[in-house]
């Protein structure tokens, strides 16, 4: 789906994200990094992610922040880290020194939805984008509880579920 939009794709379970990003940027690193994952990062082959998971389970920390650590490491110095992903509380082993030394700019927060929607509604009306491309599953509201699992497990290529009450 992402490749269809004209982007390179990287599968973290099959290849090194940092090496691929270095290759794609001639070693410079991406200028801008967006975290669309949030607090339940699944990169379980990394030791820091396993530690986060253990701390989360024992209530010693709230969030799994492997993606944020990886972004801080790989982002080009002077770059921007933009975080739409949801985080809830406290974390540990956060490389704030690396982020400061590299002069990274952080942008984050819940979305100011209506700041953007007049413009985005116009773009939909004019046919510049049709956000329905993301829908893979449609079901009744009664089927909703099962669809939570389908979505969570990414079964049948599930990316987005819409429900009809």
């Amino acid at each position: 789906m992402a490749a269809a939009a004209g982007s390179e794709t990287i599968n973290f379970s099959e290849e090194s994200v940092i090496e691929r990003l270095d290759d794609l940027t001639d070693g410079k690193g991406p200028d801008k990094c967006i975290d669309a994952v949030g607090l339940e990062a699944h990169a379980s082959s990394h030791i820091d992610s396993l530690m986060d998971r253990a701390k989360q389970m024992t209530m010693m920390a709230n969030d799994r922040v492997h993606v944020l650590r990886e972004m801080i490491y790989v982002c080009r110095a002077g770059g921007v880290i933009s975080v739409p992903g949801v985080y809830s509380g406290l974390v540990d082993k956060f490389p704030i020194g690396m982020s400061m030394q590299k002069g990274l700019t952080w942008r984050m927060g819940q979305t100011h939805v209506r700041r953007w929607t007049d413009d985005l509604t116009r773009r939909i009306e004019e046919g510049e984008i049709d956000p329905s491309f993301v829908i893979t599953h449609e079901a009744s509201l009664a089927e909703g509880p099962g669809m939570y699992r389908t979505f969570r497990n990414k079964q049948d290529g599930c990316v987005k579920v819409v429900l009809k009450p």
Partner: protein
Amino acid sequence: MKALVWHKKEDIRYETVPDPEIEEEGDAIIKVSTCAICGSDLHLFHNFIPAMKPGDVVGHEMMGEVVEVGRGVTKLKKGERVVIPFTINCDECDQCRRGNFSLCERSNRNKPLADKLFGHSTAGLFGYTHLTGGYAGGQAEYLRVPFADGTHIKVPDGLSDEQVLFLGDIFPTGWQAAVQCEIKRTDTVAIWGAGPVGQMAVRSAIISAPGRWSRSTIFPSG
């Protein structure tokens, strides 16, 4: 009415709950025509977000038809088709006037609790934790919309539910993530996560970037 109701970790049920009613004069009631499950609903499903209560109606991506308005509502009429943003906006406080709609200072009815935990509160949010107001969500047949004058997006004629539903969350969320990057012509943008918000962010980066920009990379979250 029927709704999806949170009980505990990995336990969301389709149940009968009381119909929502007008509680404040600025409220409206929406008959939901289409709603969606968001990635952030999975954080609730997995019980990673504190301050949920058994019986909470979930869902914050929804749209439908206005079926009732309170006496104080001036910008919405019965029969109008609207998408409801996941952030509840009073449109009158200092943050709303600055365009910081997710930081509305009046819509979170549990603001003192959130202020204590985070220093300052976010806006009230639909179908999420009691830290964000504990408002019933839109994975339901009907939804009460507080501050309805500020908390809606009118749907132009001729567009389907599926085309406009995501104006309420994931499209502007991907968009804001991209716009805040202030993408320059020669930038490479890397996006972690190939879920719905990541997909919206890829397209937003491409559309919002300066002319002839074409680099983006995406990192599927598996």
